């Protein structure tokens, strides 16, 4: 460590005094101004800097609270989204189930309707068949009646001509024998 010698210090003090004289420094005035500046600094520190610090702290805490709230809201949103997705999935499953049920019901109904239609068609066919049979039977009966009438008419005409007196006698005796029996 290199210490200045007293000669050097006297020389140095002279230099400072010389510089101060050169720049026009008035030591009492400078000290008074320094004291005034310190007082101003203290006043500013007490009445301006500390309230600003408090304000900044409050602001920081508010921001931290806001951030915490935002995190909370985000978590809530995530939960709601999850719930929404769950509800949607459930609704989807329910809808699917309903659709399946509706399809099954429609298929069942379709089968029943088909069976009914088939039964109705069979009934109609049976009725038509019966009506046809009736018509056929009626036609046959009419034909038989007509043939019978013609046969009887022709036979009556022919037999009336070919019966002899002996035949008449024989027929009368047949009736007489019925009375005897």
């Amino acid at each position, binding site marked *: 460590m290199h210490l200045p010698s007293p000669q050097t210090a006297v020389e140095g003090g002279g230099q400072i005094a010389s510089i101060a004289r050169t720049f026009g420094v008035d030591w009492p005035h400078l000290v008074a101004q320094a004291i005034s500046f310190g007082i101003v600094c203290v006043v500013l520190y007490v009445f301006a800097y500390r309230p600003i610090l408090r304000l900044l702290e409050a602001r920081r805490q508010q921001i931290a609270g806001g951030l915490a709230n935002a995190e909370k809201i985000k978590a809530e949103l995530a939960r709601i989204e999850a719930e929404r997705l769950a509800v949607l999935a459930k609704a989807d499953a329910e809808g699917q189930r309903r659709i399946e049920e509706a399809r099954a019901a429609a298929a069942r109904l379709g089968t029943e309707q088909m069976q009914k239609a088939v039964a109705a068609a069979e009934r109609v066919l049976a009725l038509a068949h019966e009506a046809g049979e009736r018509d056929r039977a009626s036609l046959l009966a009419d034909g038989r*009646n007509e043939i019978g009438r013609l046969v009887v008419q022709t036979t009556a005409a022919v037999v009336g001509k070919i019966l002899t007196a002996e035949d008449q006698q024989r027929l*009368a*005796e047949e009736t007489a024998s019925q*009375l005897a029996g």
Partner: protein
Amino acid sequence: MRTKTRARRAARQLYRLCVVNGALDEGRVRQVARRVAASRRRGSLRILEGFQRLVRLDIDRHTARVESATPLARLLRDTFTHRLERRYGPHLTASFRDDPALIGGVRIRVGSDVYDGTIRSRLNSLAGRF
């Protein structure tokens, strides 16, 4: 209702009075009919109606209507009369009639009994089968 039953009963009694030896006496029938018609008793008309019905049934029972397609020979008529009397009693009256529509054979009707041996009935039976 009771009047009707009473009238029927009275008609039956009057009818029995007219039967002599199993046969209806025509004279008695006339007499009864005349007397009932002349009486002014209540219900005499109903009695007369019932009596007429019973007499008609008796006549039907004792009358044989013999119908044939051609006229029957005397011998055959006698045979029919004899056999009918044997079956239905001696008080039977036989009436003979010709009906060419019968074609052949004989039909006899006594009351509700019918003996039908005619060709017409056989042909009708044949037509019925068709």
